[in-house]
């Protein structure tokens, strides 16, 4: 029996290739990187400043900082997390200058309402033998609509209705595919806070979709 191999193939990572291209002044590599992260960068920036327009400016400033600091980047963190840490610094600095800036504490769930994920009146009351079980259960969404691109559009719409911190967390996790550790490190929140924000966000998005398509088929 052979012991399981633990060695990873020693190859150059995509990130190392990107970094080398960037340092060599490759415009296409720069644009690819900018395009890939743009949406997430704007979203993260809007967590700290009050408008989309300012967030866009913060993103521009960030790239200036990234390019200036590129020769100092040592690869101890990933290129992505390094870029985003510069972004957060720029956004916070900008946020401090804003009169109506979003305070940092807004990233903590304590600032959020403590509403249940599903309205309590959809469950049976305490006097019922089946207390806490569904009184008005969710109905499966029609396959045809789930399989269309409609759901994706509705999720986008629902995300826009969320409080900022919830929207940022859910977007990074579920749209951009970040893991929870990356989100916590970037936003400076605990795993528990992250999960609470994510839970509220996802629950509201589901409820939004249900409102739009779940109950429509009911008599």
């Amino acid at each position: 029996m052979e012991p399981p191999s633990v060695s990873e193939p020693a190859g150059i990572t995509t990130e190392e290739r990107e970094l080398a291209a960037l340092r060599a002044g490759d415009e296409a590599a720069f644009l690819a990187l900018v395009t890939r992260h743009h949406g997430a960068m704007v979203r993260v920036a809007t967590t700290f400043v009050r408008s989309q327009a300012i967030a866009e400016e913060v993103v521009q400033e960030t790239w200036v900082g990234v390019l200036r600091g590129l020769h100092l980047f040592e690869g101890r963190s990933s290129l992505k997390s390094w870029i985003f840490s510069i972004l957060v610094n720029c956004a916070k600095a900008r946020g401090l200058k804003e009169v109506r800036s979003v305070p940092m504490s807004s990233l903590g769930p304590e600032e959020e309402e403590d509403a249940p994920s599903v309205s309590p009146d959809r469950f049976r009351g305490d006097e019922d033998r089946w207390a806490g079980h569904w009184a008005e259960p969710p109905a499966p969404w029609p396959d045809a609509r789930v399989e269309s691109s409609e759901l994706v559009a509705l999720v986008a719409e629902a995300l826009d209705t969320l409080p900022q911190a919830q929207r940022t967390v859910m977007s990074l996790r579920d749209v951009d595919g970040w893991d929870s550790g990356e989100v916590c490190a970037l936003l400076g929140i605990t795993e528990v806070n992250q999960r609470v924000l994510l839970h509220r966000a996802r629950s509201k998005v589901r409820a939004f979709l249900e409102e739009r398509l779940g109950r429509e088929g009911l008599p």
Partner: protein
Amino acid sequence: MTPAVPDLSCRELVELVTDYLEASLPVDERTRFELHLTYCEFCRTYLAQMRQVLESAGELTEESLAPEARDALLATFRDWKKGSGGGS
């Protein structure tokens, strides 16, 4: 004999969905959660919808970079290139 495991209600389950999907439920809670799903089709529907939400979110494409923003960034890049002597 049935073990004295208190039943999870639907109202409790919907609050545990994220912990469940994040695999952060303690083992016994996870067992209660999964046990509830075996007999409650409504909560199965709820969980399925949550998964559909996540799948749809994953398909969301980033808002594209506006041409003006793109041009501004390219100008920044070219300035940097000149200043740093970077590139060939």
